């Protein structure tokens, strides 16, 4: 078996057909992991009763275990007890697990950024009678965002890569599509080279975007 360049080139658009699934998973998980991460980070920042301890346990579990077992546990383990999970589509299940997984990492990054905001101005805001919510949304968060941005962007790139794991529960994302093609032709080399190339191009392009935005972040106030 020798490398077949024509087949390789043919594979790129074939696999790329499933990009919409990869994009869907990554973007949905980005939105929800940001939300989860922000809530967990603020809960710890303000030491919010009940919510904070719950978030600590959640973060510890999701950072302390690999993504693959998390996905299996959710999709096969919890499905055993829950009709809701059993009837869930693989894409939805993957999006949920990816969100929870990355939310835990983002929570830590956001928390660090919140803590980096100088405390004197926060005290000043409180002294004028501003609420914790107002202080967070109007003073702390805008400053923390610029600090957190680079690491959150890296989390997003990890999400895109991580979404490739969802093929194990039957999602046909670009990785799933590659797997299907390889199962027919057994041309593993070309197929997996093609899928890696697609990931590489996407992530390199995003890296360029990241540089641009980081410049804006560094041009702080």
């Amino acid at each position: 078996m020798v490398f077949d360049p024509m087949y390789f080139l043919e594979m790129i658009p074939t696999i790329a057909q499933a990009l919409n699934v990869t994009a869907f998973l990554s973007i949905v998980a980005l939105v929800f992991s940001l939300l989860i991460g922000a809530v967990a980070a603020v809960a710890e920042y303000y030491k919010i009763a009940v919510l904070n301890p719950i978030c600590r346990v959640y973060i510890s579990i999701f950072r302390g275990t690999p993504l693959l077992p998390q996905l299996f546990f959710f999709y096969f383990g919890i499905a055993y007890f829950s009709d809701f999970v059993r009837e869930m589509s693989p894409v939805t299940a993957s999006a949920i697990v990816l969100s929870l997984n990355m939310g835990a990492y983002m929570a830590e990054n956001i928390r660090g950024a919140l803590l980096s905001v100088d405390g004197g101005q926060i005290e000043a805001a409180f002294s004028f009678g501003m609420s914790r919510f107002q202080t967070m949304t109007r003073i702390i968060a805008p400053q923390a965002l610029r600090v957190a941005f680079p690491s959150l962007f890296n989390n997003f790139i990890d999400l895109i890569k991580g979404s490739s794991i969802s093929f194990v529960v039957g999602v046909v994302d670009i990785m799933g599509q590659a797997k299907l093609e390889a199962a027919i032709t057994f041309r593993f080399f070309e197929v997996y080279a093609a899928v890696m190339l697609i990931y590489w191009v996407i992530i390199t392009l995003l890296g360029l975007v990241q540089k641009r935005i980081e410049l804006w972040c560094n041009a702080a106030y």
Partner: protein
Amino acid sequence: MIKVEDLYVEFGATKVLNGVSFEIEQGDVLAIIGPSGTGKSTLLRGMNFLIPPKKGRVTVGDVTVDAERASKKQIKALREQMAMVYQNYNLYKNMTALQNVMEALVTVHHKSKKEAEEISLGLLEKVGMSDRKDFYPSRLSGGQQQRVGIARALAVNPKVILFDEPTSALDPEMVGDILELMKQLAESGMTMIVVTHEMGFAREVATKMIFMDGGVIREAGTPKEFFENPKDQRLKEFMSKIL
């Protein structure tokens, strides 16, 4: 009009304020002096419950809050009556000078953006910062930041402004400017509580003085009494060291 009664503040096992009481009237300028670490900043921050006191009561105008039964609502009502000016200015770094002054007017005092802007522009003019209204704090000198800090405090029309060593972080040549601005405020009838090491200012501008040491008030009186005839032994030592 402003009354602090038997205020106790503790940080864990460290007792920082051990029963502080004083009272001032509208238009008074109270200068608080004392050695480092005796609880002067803590007193100011306890007065607006940035540090919740263990015990005691604070009255500003017609709002009285008892530390042992303070509700969130009461604390907010109390804070709406006062404003604070800090040694390190503590301007909001993500906002311009103008936005800094407007912020509490909009978020706490529910003024319209337009009205808040009018008030704020007037005050920036008053402190001589109109031409820098769109600058972020990072682009302002210490003295300029403190002017904005004072405008921000004036904006909420407070019954009293608490100053915590407002000139201690400034370059020497800026100190006089800020003290002059504070003197003008005092002359316009603003009620002020000023923690300071500027004895010239205290002597000239203050109407009342307090000497704190070890978390209690060792002596209270007029500047005349403090400078001409201090009674407390510690105050005598303190004055001889600082003058």
